[in-house]
């Protein structure tokens, strides 16, 4: 599904990603953990194609093709979905209008028929239930005045409607109350299909109790310093990033001292 090789990326001239290697197979769920500022969101943005992030080296293959040469909307149309850490507000554009435009843009690009208002409403009704999104949010402008938790839930609602092949969740769990966390995770789980993959960025092992990963990676200072099974998340929770660093990997130690703080 996704193969990242020696990926380097800068933002405003500053190198943030310093050689990432990562492979996510079809149907797998991978978790990325790591201290604040280590580059997790940067990686997510690079994959989605944000213009502020410049790839300086390396390559990314998505479904066997060069991802980096595609426009952000082309990536989305081919099934990449990013649930943003900080979802953006679009005043005056209703949430449902926006989503219908998005869904139809994706469908059109995939050669599917566009949905009319009635079919769309039908579809939305189901998905609203799935993530228990208050219906009023459908008719309000995109994310405008939404609470932090509502914004996150709205991201998962969009994910549910767009049904991507590769979902990247950037700290979707932060700011959610316990119930919301369960609901959102259930939402994600229900969309797990053999053909779909998920990349979850999180600080908390708790989320991984709900969305169980096949693989956990620790990103420190722009590099993946350790990868392992879901138990790695538990270990991290116990020892912190410093603790992981203590286990002999010098780069980690350096990096952790420079940038990491335990969360």
């Amino acid at each position, binding site marked *: 599904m996704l193969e990242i090789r020696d990926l380097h990326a800068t933002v405003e001239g500053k190198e943030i990603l310093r050689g990432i290697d990562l492979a996510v197979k079809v149907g797998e769920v991978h978790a990325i953990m790591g201290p604040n500022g280590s580059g997790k969101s940067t990686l997510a943005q690079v994959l*989605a*194609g*944000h*213009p*502020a992030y410049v790839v300086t080296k390396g390559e990314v293959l998505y479904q066997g093709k060069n991802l980096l040469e595609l*426009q*952000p*909307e082309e*990536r*989305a*149309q081919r099934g990449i*979905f*990013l649930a*943003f850490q900080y*979802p*953006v*507000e*679009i*005043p*005056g*554009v209703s949430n449902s209008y*926006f*989503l219908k*435009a*998005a*869904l139809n*843009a*994706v469908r059109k*690009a995939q050669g599917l028929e566009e949905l009319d208002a009635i079919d769309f409403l039908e579809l939305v009704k189901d998905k609203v239930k799935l993530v228990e999104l208050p219906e009023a949010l459908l008719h309000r*402008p995109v994310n405008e005045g939404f609470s932090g938790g509502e914004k996150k839930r709205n991201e998962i609602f*969009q994910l549910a409607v*767009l049904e991507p092949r590769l979902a990247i969740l950037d700290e979707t769990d932060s700011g959610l109350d316990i119930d919301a966390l369960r609901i959102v995770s259930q939402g994600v789980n229900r969309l797990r299909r053999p053909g779909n993959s998920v990349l979850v960025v999180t600080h908390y092992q708790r989320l991984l109790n709900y969305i169980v990963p096949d693989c956990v990676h620790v990103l420190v200072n722009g590099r993946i310093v350790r990868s392992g099974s879901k138990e790695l998340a538990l270990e991290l929770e116990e020892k912190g990033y410093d603790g992981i660093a203590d286990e002999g990997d010098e780069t980690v130690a350096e990096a952790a001292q420079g940038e990491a703080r335990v969360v």
Partner: protein
Amino acid sequence: MRQGQDAMDDATNASSIPVMMDDRDGSSDDVIEDRVQQEYQWGWSTEIEADLAPKGLNENIVRFISEKKGEPEFMLQWRLKAYRHWLTMREPSWANVKYPPIDYQDAYYYAAPKKKAELQSLDEVDPELIRTFDKLGIPLEEQKVLAGVAVDAVFDSVSVATTFKSKLAEMGVVFGSFSEAVHNHPDLIRKYLGTVVPYTDNFFAALNSAVFSDGSFCYVPKGVRCPMELSTYFRINAQNTGQFERTLIVADEGAYVSYLEGCTAPMRDENQLHAAVVELVAMDNAEIKYSTVQNWYPGDKDGKGGIYNFVTKRGACRGVNSKISWTQVETGSAITWKYPGCILQGDNSVGEFYSVALTNNWQQADTGTKMIHLGKNTRSTIVSKGISAGQGQNTYRGLVQMMKGATNARNFTQCDSMLIGDKCGAHTFPYIEVRNSTAQAEHEASTSKIGEDQIFYCKQRGIGLEDAVSMIVNGFCKEVFRELPMEFAVEAQKLLGVSLEGSVG
């Protein structure tokens, strides 16, 4: 986009009305060129039927226009007074716009399209006009007429098609061309003409009063709610012909009318002056809603050509509880100079101004409103959305005046600007004068850049750049579009999309 096509059409048009061709047209068609020279030598004194006054402006031209239209003496005298007053005036220079000096003697002041046989149906309207509407998704005859809109299509200053007139006449509504009204209802014209915008008002209003060729007139009698949206399309067709439309709308006691004015113009090389005057009068308990979508030719990407749109629009809320509401979407013209205002004279009267002004490439807009509160408990609302892209300059200029008698008057002004790119500009000049201590004016303003993050968010969901920009800008303008009649709102949204093409990327 359609430059080549238009140039050809112009050449064809010109051959049927030879004098209208100007030697600066740049047409390579020697035959036509020759004919132009010939016709030009003959001049109008021997060829008065050419339906085109010679270039320049003097009393004779004013008389020519009035005579051409078979006007009663009072009209001629009014025009002449206006002309003489104009001679004493200077072109205003306070607006935040730049353009080379206009040579008023180097323009034509009267041109009528060659009369064809009477039009039997709207199918006979210029196909070029229809094509322009098609591009915006609004076939004139189908969408407007079928939607119950009476269409009074005006181009080249003379009305060529009017529908639904008989239905309106049954209700006592007078709606048609201004010239017709001068003949059929001189009493109404005499009573109201120039009472809201006197010819002394400003330089362009004086010029218009002297030489206006046609426009629309509407009178809605006491207690009548006009059952359909009245609509007029304007179009500038004759090259280098200043356009001077005049519109007068009167809603008598308890009457209601909604009027739509839409403008499109084909590609032009020459700057063209457009100085219209619109007067609205609302008596006791009457309401007038006036909506405009203005899309005159804005000039090319390098700022060449384009219409100068210097318009005076004003409404008088004369009666108690009367209401006048202006909604405008300004996307066209090289330069827009326009301040639709309300004189809130009747107690409890209400004035509203909702505006979207978009400037792209080298367009300049200096627009806003004037709300003059005279009566008690008068209220006004101003919502202005300015969008600047390319090298566009967008200025909001608003005057809110609360006079001595305006006890408990209220104004709310909201003025938002959006910048697309970093070579454009937005400027806000609110003037507030309060002379009654119980009156209050409130002003809010904001300026934002279209967010890279907003665009990226849309793209990440699969929406392409142009659709994303159009969506974000339309969202920004939502409060104004909400005020437009439904089908007009759709048209306006498309127009914003079309006008912004290529502005980001």
